[in-house]
Structure formats: structure tokens, C-alpha cells
């Protein structure tokens, strides 16, 4: 009997140790000299030469449909680790989807800018936020972009540029960015001709950039796995896809 107790006691210790190590991870100073990196989801790490978002860098996400989701997924892990995210523009963002991508909704603010004070607003946000997502609806001047990038570098903020609406996709950040993620292919799963529903999609993402990132990288991602709420490299589980598609039945509601 005492032996059995000891073994449960030991597993209890193991569990607690596990929890403690998680807390240690969380409470460690965020900016040690060597690792000025904001975390990204494990499945995205292959795209980042530093294994995460390098503080003070500028990142652009572009490509076709799926770019906005990818950009928000990039912020997810950092947001859950305690970083605040500011989104400038994108006033039609569906926040339910943002939550599903794994972003902590208590640490995100959406700002609707006006064009004349756009740069001032972004600069003010760079001073205080760890991640600033900008989706300018106008062409940003190169000098402005350079100044903002310099400010972000100084403050250790990641400036993430995403294209706005689908029709604005041709517009690019006027300056060369440290890392550019491009969605090159999208394939949706779950929707058929007349039944099913959009369940998940496979994105092929290419990463190019300057310095360390100059060697192109590529990753195939599943966005979003309905159960995990985050991206996974594995396709969704078998029984998931074989299950009868959920069709919302007609009913009188309220």
C-alpha cells in the first residue's frame, strides 16, 4: 500500500514539475539579449529563419485568398504569450475567426485610422505594442514606411503588413521587408457541390526575405483545424473528414 501511494505521489510530482516548467517558460524575461524573438505557432516555425518573429523586424504577408488568416495566425502564439496586438485598418475583420486562429481576444485592439494621421497613429502604436498589423487602404509613401520601420526596429516591435481587401492585393509595402510570406496556393476541403461546409484549407506558403531569410522556405499548412483551433501540418483526422457533413437544419429559432 505505501508503495502504491509513493508511485502516485511521484506521478503527481512529475505533473507538477511539468506545470512549473510551463510557468517558468511564461515568466522568463521576454527579451534576453540573445533571443529577441516573439514566438510563433510550432507549425509556422519552419518559415522563420529565427524560429519566430524577430523583434524590430518588418514582415509582409501577401498572396491571394488566405493572406489575412495567415497574418493573424502568425500573431497567435505571441498574443497568447502576453503580447498585445494592434490592428490598424481591417475594420471589417471577423473577430470570431481571429479567436479561432488562436489569438487572445483580450489583447487585441482594432483601430480605424484616417488617412491624414495614419502614420502618426501607427507610430504611436509601435511605441507600446509588440505587434502592429497594418492594412493601409492607401499607398504608403516610401519615406513614411522607412520611418515606421526604423521606429519599429528601435522599439522592438514587429510591424506586420497585410493586404486589405481582395481587390487591393496588388498593392505592396513600398519598402523591402525583412520577411515576406506569400500564399501561393489554396485548396479548400469540406465543401462539395450542394453539401458539406468549408472545414479547412491547405495553404502553400513561401517565405523570402533579406539576410538570413534570403534562402526561400516553403511550408504546407492546414488552416484551421476545427478542433485544434490552430494550424497543424497534419491533415485533419480521418474520422473527421468521413463524418457526415453538418448541415444546419431548418428550424424556427429564438
Amino acid at each position: 500500500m505505501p508503495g502504491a501511494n509513493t508511485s502516485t505521489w511521484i506521478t503527481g510530482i512529475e505533473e507538477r514539475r511539468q506545470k512549473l516548467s510551463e510557468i517558468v517558460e511564461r515568466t522568463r524575461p521576454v527579451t534576453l539579449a540573445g533571443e529577441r524573438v516573439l514566438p510563433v505557432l510550432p507549425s509556422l516555425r519552419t518559415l522563420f529563419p529565427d524560429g519566430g518573429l524577430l523583434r524590430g523586424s518588418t514582415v509582409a504577408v501577401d498572396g491571394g485568398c488566405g493572406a489575412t488568416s495567415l497574418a493573424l495566425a502568425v500573431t497567435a502564439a505571441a498574443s497568447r504569450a502576453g503580447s498585445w496586438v494592434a490592428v490598424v485598418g481591417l475594420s471589417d475583420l471577423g473577430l470570431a475567426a481571429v479567436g479561432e486562429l488562436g489569438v487572445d481576444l483580450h489583447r487585441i485592439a482594432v483601430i480605424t485610422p484616417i488617412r491624414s494621421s495614419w502614420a502618426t497613429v501607427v507610430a504611436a502604436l509601435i511605441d507600446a505594442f509588440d505587434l502592429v498589423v497594418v492594412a493601409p487602404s492607401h499607398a504608403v509613401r516610401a519615406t513614411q514606411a522607412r520611418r515606421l520601420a526604423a521606429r519599429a526596429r528601435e522599439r522592438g516591435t514587429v510591424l506586420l503588413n497585410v493586404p486589405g481587401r481582395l481587390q487591393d492585393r496588388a498593392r505592396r509595402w513600398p519598402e523591402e521587408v525583412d520577411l515576406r510570406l506569400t500564399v501561393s496556393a489554396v485548396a479548400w476541403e469540406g465543401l462539395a457541390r450542394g453539401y458539406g461546409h468549408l472545414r479547412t484549407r491547405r495553404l502553400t506558403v513561401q517565405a523570402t526575405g533579406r539576410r538570413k531569410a534570403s534562402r526561400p522556405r516553403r511550408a504546407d499548412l492546414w488552416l484551421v483545424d476545427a478542433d485544434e483551433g490552430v494550424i497543424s501540418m497534419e491533415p485533419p483526422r480521418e474520422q473527421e473528414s468521413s463524418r457526415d457533413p453538418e448541415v444546419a437544419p431548418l428550424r424556427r429559432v429564438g
Partner: protein
Amino acid sequence: MSVAQVRTLVVWCPDWPLTSSGIPDGVPAAVVLANRVIACSPAARERGVTRGLRRREAQGRCPEVEVIERDTAREARAFESVAAALEAFTPRVEMIRPGLCSFPTLGPSRCFGGDESLAQQVREMVDEVTGGVPGCRIGLADGPFAARLAARRCRDSQPYVVARGTSPAFLAPLPVTSLDAPALTDVLLRLGVGTLGAFAALGAADVAARFGTEGLGLHRLAAGRDERPSDTRVPPPDLEVSTGLDPPADRVDQVGFVAKALADRFNDELGRRGLACSRVLIVAETESGERMERLWRHEGSLGATAIAQRVRWQLEGWLTGGATPTGGIVRLLLVPDEVLPAAGRQLGFWGGHSEEGEGPRRALARVQGLLGPDSVRVPRRRGGRSPGEQVVLVPLDSVDLASPPPAGDSDQPWPGRLPSPSPVVIHPEPVPCEVLSRDGEPVGVSGRGLLTATPARVSIAGGRWLEVMAWAGPWTTDERWWDPVAHRRRARFQVLTSDDAGRLLSLEGRRWWEEAVYD
């Protein structure tokens, strides 16, 4: 009793958030902060609206209630006229917050014919300034704490004056909850200590042993003494800080940023000497030499954010009030009027008060100053069927970022809710579109929820035709059928178009709309 308490007069306008909004008498109205009622008019109270109710509940109990968002700037602005009027009695008006201020009556009461007469005259003056707002209460007693409780006891607008030296007797029968320290009073009540008198009767050493310095301070208050013994009061050293503004500032938010930096410096300076400030004199000077000063008092100690907020309040009243200054503000000065040893404040490790998010909060306040209050929004979970209803963006001002939001109805099952993943782009206004079958016929849905034809091509907002690669639907909803105005009957479709974009379309009243895009 070593030192006699300072006779203090307290002017308290209950429901000031409401009074300052200028709602006429007799109209049911409620002021809400972060979706909770914080003040309501007598008319609303009669119909069952109370403090702490949620906005919806308040509207449910009294549908005609007028709901106003809290605006501390407006309150400060309106209270400035009261404070200015009180300056006719004494130069030492201490502001505690908009709606509540006090002043020591030693000099004024001699000049205005005794305590009773002074209180009466103050009441008449306040009535005149506020236009006879019902419920302005005046209390006069030994010490600010007793005076505040006296003001609370005042009925029918008659000032409540506690005779000199009788404050302990006045306080004794009052409930211990008047101390406004829930953590302590909760314990006291469970210990069977129900009144301030019973609490005061406990030995000071015992109270200190059980409840620490904080408890000791409250014990002194309950006994009708000053919160801090007079001999521990530190004479304020020359610690005033000032800053020049160049160019002169003529907007409150401009001064607000400067004030925050100045208050930080002020507090650092005090903190280095182990002091905290409980009363501060804020002085603003304009380029044409006008000067505006006010004394602000706080029960605890004033933090940098609190001081900056008080600067804002003071200037709101001045810059937008009746006697506006002729020039911009060129100098701002903070003078510590009363300091005390800093007891220190431990920031929460898990939960509680912490500095987390303080920086972003400040930056957002700055952005609000640039773009207006509604330009900054934060998400809050609500329940709903449409993707846009599940999480909504609410203005930053309507939520309290520091406290966790109450759990909404988001966990409840919402039958007919769209399956996840949710669309990333939701159009604020649905975009009209057209859906045609292979034969070029418009696609519709019958009354039984059946499609008239298979959708084959889609054109969004008159754009080019996109081929439908896959689709599902119609998912019909019939929402709020009991309400002729809000009733919506529509059929939703998910469509995958040839540009690889998933789209959420809906058919309502024979017209097609694009509601959202799975970007």
C-alpha cells in the same frame, strides 16, 4: 485624543454622472460604464432600475429608460462650476472626484456665522449653480470621513451638521460597511462586529496585529480620528515639479500627455524619498498670465495615472467652462500638499492589479485623442448566429480593460449557428451580388427551403463572373419572428468561387448578398 480633528464640510452630489448629463427631471435615465448601471434618476429607480444592473436588464425593467454612457470629462466640466462657486467661501477647496469635494471650515465658519449658517449658505450657492438639482447633500463634522458619512445621512436637502466633538458618537451606530473596504468589513461582519462603534472599541494593537496598517488606519477612522496619527505626517519637502509647454497647448489631450510624463516624474521623485502623495495641488498657467489651481485629495495615495486624470478633469472644466482662459497653457505645476510614507504597493503576481497592458492602454488613449473615441475598438464575446454577432467590436471606452470581461452568452448553444471556421472578413454592409444557374436563370429558394436551380456563376457587386466550384445550402434561418421590425428570414450559402475564395452569400427577400469572405 491629541489633536482636534479638522472641521470639514463635504459637498456631495449623488448621481453626479447623471446630473451632469443634463437630463431633465422626471425622465427615467441611467448612466452606464462598461455595460453596468452606475447611476440612475429617481424616475428610473421607481421603475426598478438599480446600480450594478446590466444595460439590458435595466432596459428590460424600464423600456423607456434613457441610457447614457459615462463621460468623466463631462462630469468634471460640469462640476467645475460648483467648485468655482465654493471658492467664494474658501480658497482651500479640495476636490475628491467630480461630484464630491470638501473644505476645512475653521475660517469660513467664523466668517459666515457658524457651522449651521455656513452649511445653509453653501447649499443655497450649490443649488443656484446646479439649477436646484435635487439631492445635493452637505455634511459637516470633525474630519473628512465623518463629514462624508454625515453628507450621506442628510435628508431633504437639509445640511447635516454634527456638533463639534461628537463625531465619534455620531459614527458609533453606523454600520461597519460605511468604511468602504469590503475585504475588511466582510471579515468584521463575520466576526460579529457590526457597527463602527464596536470596531472602534477593539484594541488598536489587536487590530494592527490582525489587519495590519491598513486595518489600523480604518480603525482610527471608525473611532472618529484622522486616518493617520498626526505625528507621522511628514512635512512636505520642496518636491514640486513643473514643465513648460512650447508651443502653448489649447487642447486638453495635449496637456494630458504632458501631465502623464510630469506625474511620472513627480511620483519617481517622491518614491525615491519613500513618500507617496495623498493631496496634490495642480496649477496651470496660460501665456497671458492666467492661473488656475485646484487641490485634489485622495483617500489612498495618488498614482501617476490618477494625477494625470485629475489634470485632465481640472482642465476640462477650465478650458471648456464659462470663464475660458484667453491663451494656451504654457506651464503645468504639481505641488505635493500632503505626503505620507509610502506603504508600498505589491503588484499582483497572478491576477489582481498589475502593470500588464499599461503601455498599450496609454497608446490607445493617445490614438483616441488623435482619432476620436470611437476609432479604437476591442472585441467582446457575445452570443449570436451570424459570424459578426458572436464576437463584436465595442468602443474601448465602454469596457474596462483592467478587469476580465463577464462571460457572455458565447458558450450557449446557438442553434443554426454557422459552423467554424468563421469568415475572416465580414462586410459591415452586405455587398449585393448576383447568382445565376447554368442556363443564366437567377437562382432562388422556395418557401419550403428548396433551391430553384443549381448555382453556377456569381458576380459580386457587378464585378466579373466567377464560376462556382462548390457550394452548400440553403441554410435557412428565421430570426426574431415575434418582432415585426427585427424579423429576418434568410437563406445562407457557402460558395467556393474560381478565385479560390470561400464566400458566405445570403438570400433575403429575393436578393442576393455577399455577407462575408473566408479570406
